[in-house]
């Protein structure tokens, strides 16, 4: 019986890895040929003859995600701190937790529509701010949930040690409790960033997509998921090849974000020899 069970778990792991592996394989196989310096830096060329690149989409994704996390990370982390450290078991906290869970499962197109109504229809044109707000709405519940859960794992004795030194509660929370939970919180943030970097639906309703580089906070920008979707729906082989290339870039970006943060966070002494990297490490410490 033991063997059957072990066998079943292994079989399921293999089953789960098949789609992941084959997607990666297929994207690399089809996308690698499209990648060149021009592809990474130039705007889209003629639709019919091809050429150019996905520069604006790469820039747009980086900017939109950064903008969204500028809103989402502080709000999410502080709200998570509230739920874990201040709210206790009040009815209000229970309500917030419940709606936070509901928000985690909210269809992203609905959030896109919210962004459209509040920040596109009122301003008059599609813009990056609307996109960032929509993405931050997707991000916040994930960050809130992970922050609360990881903070709850910090033993109470650590908080008490802080209090016993006459340190005010907000400092105990920010510099001792949150610091003790930083690995988990950062992992949660990376999870949320990866999730929003790949979102398409809310972006269609907000930033629209363009073949221009960033113009301003109230103008449309491009993004990789949007660009992939556009390229894939065109009837040209060169567009499809570009689409695969863009997909590969998106996957690499998300993956390297996870790997980078893992290196920074998981206190393993990787000697990378890159001064910038060490500088970031020191910042987190």
């Amino acid at each position: 019986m033991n063997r059957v069970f072990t066998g079943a778990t292994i079989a399921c792991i293999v089953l789960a890895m098949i789609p992941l592996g084959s997607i990666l394989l297929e994207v690399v196989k089809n996308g690698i040929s499209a990648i060149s310096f021009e592809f990474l830096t130039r705007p889209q060329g003629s639709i019919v003859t091809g050429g150019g690149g996905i520069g604006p989409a790469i820039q747009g994704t980086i900017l939109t995600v950064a903008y969204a996390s500028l809103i989402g990370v502080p709000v999410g982390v502080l709200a998570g701190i509230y739920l874990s450290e201040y709210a206790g078991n009040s009815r209000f906290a229970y309500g917030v937790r419940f709606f936070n869970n509901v928000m985690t499962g909210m269809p992203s197109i609905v959030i896109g529509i919210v962004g459209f109504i509040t920040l596109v229809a009122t301003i008059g044109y599609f813009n990056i701010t609307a996109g960032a707000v929509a993405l931050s709405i997707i991000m916040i519940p994930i960050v809130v949930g992970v922050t609360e859960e990881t903070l709850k794992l910090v033993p109470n004795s650590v908080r008490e040690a802080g209090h016993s030194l006459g340190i005010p509660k907000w400092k105990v929370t920010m510099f001792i409790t949150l610091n003790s939970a930083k690995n988990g919180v950062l992992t949660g943030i990376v999870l949320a960033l990866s999730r929003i970097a790949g979102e398409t639906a809310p972006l269609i309703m907000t930033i629209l997509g363009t073949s221009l580089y960033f113009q301003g906070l109230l103008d449309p920008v491009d993004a990789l998921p949007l660009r992939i979707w556009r390229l894939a729906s065109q009837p040209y082989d060169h567009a499809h090849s570009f689409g695969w290339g863009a997909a590969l870039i998106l996957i690499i970006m998300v993956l390297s974000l996870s790997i980078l943060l893992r290196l920074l966070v998981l206190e393993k002494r990787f000697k990378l020899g890159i001064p910038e990297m060490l500088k970031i490490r020191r910042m987190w410490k």
Partner: protein
Amino acid sequence: MTSEEYVGSVDYKTERADSDVLSYKVSVRNLNSWFGAKQALKDINFDVKENTITSLIGPSGCGKTTLIRCLNRMNEMTASASVKGSVFVDDTDIYDGAVDPVLIKRRIGMVFQKPNPFPTMSIHGNVAAGLKLNGVRDRKLIDEIVVDSLKSAALWDEVKDELDKPGLSLSGGQQQRLCIARALAMQPEVLLMDEPTSALDPIASSKIEELINDLKRDLTIIIVTHNMQQAARVSDYTAFMYLGEMIEYGPTKQIFENPQKDLTERYISGKFG
């Protein structure tokens, strides 16, 4: 009763009158504590002299931990806990409305049952944390205090070459001495210790006991222990508690050799508890 009222009261004057030699560092007056509806401390009164070690002993659930946590206002941080009464440190009632429960903890240090170094901080960082987070910016001063505190906690020789290592890399006994150093760095007047050796092996425990004895020179120490031999070894005074009441309090020798109350005698001789 506020401290001013207390100082003006008959109690205080009579106490002062017959205690020109004895100066009390900590005085507990009519202290009661509840968890929800359950009363954990019943009308506790006792005085602790400066530069002495006082043990609180008693069976599990007798309220000794609750009592020690009331002495730096840590107890009220537990949800559902409430406290009534007065605890004077010198002439300040720490339960006075005007006293900031955060600030008072800087004068009254605490060491906990299980070693609890800050998990993400180095040895140096652990000892320096209290100073830094209380706004001390002078690096040189911080470094000096860290060295002094580690020396006072008898840990310096073992860690002087690895101050940057994580606090959690130390052994259990070393971690507990690190926690003592962390408390000492705030230069408290009173040090509360809640079963500081209960999670340690006998050798580590005896080191801590020696240390406690050395610290007496600069500090007033109140220690909770479930180990009667430890109480007999380290303390000058002992208080026996049972079911939230302080049954007997006196010089350690007297409590162990000639207890006045039958209940104390039975506990000391191991008939219950």
